[in-house]
């Protein structure tokens, strides 16, 4: 059915050869006045329901970003917790508009016609956690160490590649069950625990003494965690550029707290700020073409915030995760990270 539908759609598109920006999915969001966004049902820091059953977290805020940009109201994001493979199926089957649930963008996934990978919100990668008592400051010093990792995962393959390339001898403790694996690490049965860095950060909190463990600086695989939408050029553009607004806001020093004051006094602001928020700005011109509210950039910043605000709110130094944004790949390019803000003009 899906194949039939998509081939019919493709034929129709070829026959009429409409100009590029037609957005049936975006139109659907606007018609329903809500944006259905899938998140992980229980991922501390990224998406977890608060006491009122409303999802909160880093990933959740990008659902709210999309709703603020498209509908002008972040609360119109209908955020649903759903398992990983189900979320892909749900998007392909038109059961949801987008997903923000730490999905790694890979070539084969993007080749699937039912999914569009839009904007990378978090650069993750596989890393190593060690007890501070081990006295190791780099993964290259791990010669002879025992590594705890998930049996049969790509984690082990990555370790084999990385350590093999550097002629580092190591032993693997294969433990399939995560709780047992962590217990083995915390009790000292293995020297090193290997997993994605974000998983390491939240797993560390499960220890009785989180402060006695440290995460080594080496990140040995690429896990660009990316927003996924239904394929729809207009929707993809809206989500991608809403995210760019959040990155640009960081460069320009605009936050949810000062954006109202800045917009009231736009004349005295730098040109780049005016291009985001002015009546006749580049952002407003984009809004006209995509069918977004004219002040979408303002709505995104005032209701959700700049990228670093979202990061600090859920994962930053003030939170139990205590991640220093400037030390991760998620800092802006100018600060030594990989987040590159595209120009809005």
């Amino acid at each position, binding site marked *: *059915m899906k194949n039939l539908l998509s081939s019919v759609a493709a034929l129709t598109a070829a026959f009429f050869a409409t100009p590029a920006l037609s957005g049936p999915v975006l139109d659907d969001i606007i018609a329903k006045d809500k944006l259905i966004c899938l998140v992980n049902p229980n*991922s501390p820091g990224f998406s977890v329901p608060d*006491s009122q*059953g409303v*999802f909160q977290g880093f990933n959740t805020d990008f659902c709210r970003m999309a709703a603020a940009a498209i509908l002008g109201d972040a609360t119109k994001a209908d955020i649903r*917790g759903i398992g990983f493979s189900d979320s892909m199926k749900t998007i392909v089957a038109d059961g949801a508009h987008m997903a923000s649930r730490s999905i790694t963008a890979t070539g084969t996934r993007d080749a699937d016609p039912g999914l569009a990978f839009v904007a990378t919100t978090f650069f993750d990668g596989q890393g190593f956690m060690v007890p501070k008592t081990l006295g190791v400051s780099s993964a290259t010093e791990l010669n002879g160490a025992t590594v705890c990792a998930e049996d049969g995962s790509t984690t082990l393959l990555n370790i084999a590649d990385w350590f093999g390339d550097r002629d580092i001898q190591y032993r693997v403790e294969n433990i399939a069950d995560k709780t047992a694996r962590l217990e083995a690490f915390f009790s000292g049965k293995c020297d090193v625990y290997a997993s994605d860095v974000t998983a390491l950060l939240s797993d560390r909190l499960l220890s009785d003494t989180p402060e006695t463990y440290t995460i080594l600086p080496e990140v040995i695989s690429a896990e660009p965690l990316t927003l996924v939408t239904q394929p729809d050029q207009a929707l993809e553009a809206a989500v991608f550029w809403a995210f760019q607004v959040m990155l640009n806001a960081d460069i320009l020093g605009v936050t949810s707290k000062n954006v109202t004051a800045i917009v009231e006094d736009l004349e005295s602001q730098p040109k780049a700020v005016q291009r985001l928020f002015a009546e006749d700005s580049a952002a407003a011109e984009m809004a006209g073409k995509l069918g977004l509210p004219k002040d979408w950039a303002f709505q995104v910043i005032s209701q959700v915030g700049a990228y670093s605000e979202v990061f600090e709110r859920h994962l930053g130094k003030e*939170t139990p995760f205590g991640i220093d944004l400037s030390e991760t790949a998620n800092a802006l390019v100018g600060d030594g990270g990989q987040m590159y803000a595209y120009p809005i003009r």
Partner: protein
Amino acid sequence: MNFTFAAHLRTGLREGFSSPLAAALSLLTGGLIVAIAWVSIRWLLLEAVWPWQEADACRETTGLCWPFLTEKVRLILFGTYPFDLQARPAAVSVMLCLLAVLTCRQMVGKPPRLNAGQLAAIWVLVIGLSFVLMGGGVFGLQAVDPVRWNGLPILLILSIVAVALAFPLGVLLTLARVQTSHPILALLASSYVEITRGVPMLTVLFVGIFVLPLTLPAGVSISPVMATLVALVFFHASYFAEDIRGGLLSLPAGQGEAANSLGMTYWQATRLVVLPQAIRRSLPSLVNSLIGAYKDTSLVVVVGIHDLTATARMSFGDPEWRDNALEAYVLVGLWFFLSCAYLSGIGRQLHRNSAS
């Protein structure tokens, strides 16, 4: 009263310390009980942080953290169901519990006495009303997607509705299996029962979630809740079928033959003579299967349905409350303990009734 207590104590002491081995075992169990009691009292009372205290106090002690429970109780009960509309799942939960209690009282012959037709009508009404209240979309109720049916109501819906539908199916399967005039039907029924009982429930759940949608005609979609419900019905039906078959086989053949000789048709004899007796005889083992089915319902977590255990995990997934897993699990454990204890009580009552 005092006399009987003293007598009990004397007998207990005499039996508990009749030999060195018995004395050692008595002391050991006694010590264990005291140790467990001491740990529980410390956790529950001495080191507990009470509901009127500040939540910060929970970080200072290792005792029960009441502020966590008062903060998270609605999340644990109803999950991500819209907060303002949670009166609806609350009403559904109460209705389904009352329905279960009412049915249990009928089984053991306690008031209010209803006939089978009335009971069936109440079941249909309550189950229909449950789906209307949960899903909304009619009578001006705001629609709520089944993804948000979490916690207690989904546990009750899946277990109670599955049992309600599986029971008649189980009866039909048994009848098909024990009759002799259609051997192929009997063979089909017995292979169905044996195959379903021969695979783990997880397999059946995965078939329900992943294979069932593929077998539907194009364009028809089925929500995970419904797919799981169908899988559970087919799974439980085979267990109920075996329980009822035990009752049927223990019934003297003369019962059915007498009914036939009175001129009753097969269906009349089955409905009026054979089945009522067979079901009464199999009630204790049916209650056993029922408790098993109820507890197994928590397995639906693996197919992405957020029942009570999943919402409990969400409650301490909140980084602010990550130390309170024990409280959440104790709450869920208490619920299962109480509800299963009630069902076991009914089972014991049935045993007593059938013995007398």
